[in-house]
């Protein structure tokens, strides 16, 4: 028994209970299906109306519903904040080009950017998981921009700038360069007494 959300195109969310295929099949059908085991084991859920109460697990379902409602309000809040930022960026960019931008257009761009952000989040998680990591890296972000070469190049240069600024990049440096560093510092120490 699980709750799932279906986001409808008009922006509302429909909560449905989905049930495992096994539970709804009456016992008489089981012998008929026993020779086709794949059908039984396939996890295709069938959807019932929300009001159907089959197993008395209502309390946990209501908790899940509360969670989902809370999630939705959080979702709206985040979306609104993102939209505001996106709108301000779009307007400054339009001003830079000396043009005005129509209201609906800027709202459309903001929504597009939010959808893109969702895709980026999904991609980053997948890349990090693929690399066996739990924390998303800068490399993951650079990789997620692989579709456009110019974009990838600009992100990579930003990445290098950020890495150079990092004060504790010593840990990440390879042994070779670290040795070179030590040699350089030791040679400096030798030169000073000569002066």
């Amino acid at each position: 028994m699980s709750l799932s959300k279906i986001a409808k195109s008009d922006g509302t969310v429909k909560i449905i209970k989905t049930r495992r295929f096994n539970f709804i099949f009456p016992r008489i059908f089981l012998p008929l299906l026993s020779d086709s085991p794949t059908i039984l084991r396939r996890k295709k859920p069938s959807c019932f109306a929300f009001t159907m109460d089959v197993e008395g697990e209502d309390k946990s379902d209501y908790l899940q519903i509360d969670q989902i409602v809370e999630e939705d309000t959080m979702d709206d809040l985040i979306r609104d904040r993102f939209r505001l930022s996106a709108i301000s960026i779009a307007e400054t960019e339009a001003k830079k080009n000396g043009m005005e931008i129509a209201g609906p257009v800027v709202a459309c761009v903001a929504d597009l950017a939010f959808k893109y952000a969702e895709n980026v989040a999904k991609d980053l998680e997948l890349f990090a998981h693929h690399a066996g990591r739990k924390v998303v890296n800068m490399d993951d972000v650079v990789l997620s921009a692989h579709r456009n070469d110019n974009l990838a190049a600009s992100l990579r240069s930003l990445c290098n700038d950020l890495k150079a600024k990092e004060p504790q990049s010593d840990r990440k440096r390879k042994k070779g360069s670290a040795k070179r560093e030590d040699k350089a510092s030791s040679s400096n120490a030798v030169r000073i007494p000569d002066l």
Partner: protein
Amino acid sequence: MRKNVMDANSTFDSDLIHAIFKHIWARRFRERERSDAIDATEAEVALGTTKKNRLASANANALKLSCELLKSFVSEAVQRAAIIAEAEGMDKIEATHLERILPQLLLDF
């Protein structure tokens, strides 16, 4: 707030992007938990081939880069649409201009 709008180089707030990513990752984590409870076959569990369901988190620099990425998405969209509008001789970016740049924009990002 107005001052931020007037800034020459406004960009997305790192905390906002972090909140968005955490929200989405938490949602995917919960969905995976639910589907794992349903899907896990005996054979997979016995072989140990099921990957652990980990909740992702982000590096600070990765967040900065993602802010730049999202900002460049918005900037590119507006700039490309502005080029089209300028070619038409108009001084306001309309929906038709956005429509024309949309396919290539989505292919590039």
